[in-house]
């Protein structure tokens, strides 16, 4: 998918994928150190658990989740037909990634 490869050109982005809410991969372009199936399943798992908690808390569903871990950042964004997952390095420019995600979402929704 062109949209993902464009997104991956952003400095600090290690890969991206589009995954269904059931964890099934729609498209993936991750670097070789990351396993598509694992990242896909775990992305869906995070979105489902955060979604449940947010609904109980404020009756709202999450649009974007950003997780900062020791070795990197994970951006999970509702893309309508699934979840757009972006794996990035720890010191990535968050604003730039968010901007690129926004543009990618517009393309995905327009497709």
């Amino acid at each position, binding site marked *: 998918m062109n949209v993902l490869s464009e997104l991956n050109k952003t400095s600090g982005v290690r890969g991206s994928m589009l995954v269904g809410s059931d964890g099934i991969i729609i498209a993936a372009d991750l670097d070789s150190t990351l396993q598509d199936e*694992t990242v896909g399943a*775990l992305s869906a798992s995070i979105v489902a*658990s955060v979604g449940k*908690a*947010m609904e109980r808390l404020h009756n*709202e569903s999450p*649009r974007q*989740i950003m997780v*900062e871990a020791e070795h990197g950042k994970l951006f999970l964004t509702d893309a309508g037909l699934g979840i757009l997952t972006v794996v990035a390095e720890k010191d990535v420019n968050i604003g730039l990634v968010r901007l690129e995600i926004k543009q990618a979402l517009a393309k995905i929704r327009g497709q």
Partner: protein
Amino acid sequence: MLTVKAEKKDNKFQAALDYLVEYRGVREAAILDRDGLLVGYCGAGFSGAEAFAPLSLLMLHNIDAVLERLGENKAGSVVVKTVDSWLTIQAAANLILVVRASSEADDLLRVRIGRAADMIRLHVQEKYPLQVD
């Protein structure tokens, strides 16, 4: 009256929460321990601290479990954005800082959250030095 003032001044957790809640758009902020118990709370949100604390911790636990499977350590912070609000869950020493803000709040809030987490870390380090990782 003087006693109350002195107590308030000495409560550095509350000072960190006040520092957050005075920022534009921030609705509520809480400090939890790793068992989901409320250490401090400030704000006028409708969710109330009773639901806010355990559900935020539940989210963090679920994310940590997922990260562990990816070979990562625990999450340093989690930011959840919804249509009109955002929730930040930030680890601070052996405690957890949770902040809920409306879309009115800007990205500078991240700086405040970082500073408040530092205030909490420092206070824990000073008061309970053996419990800090």
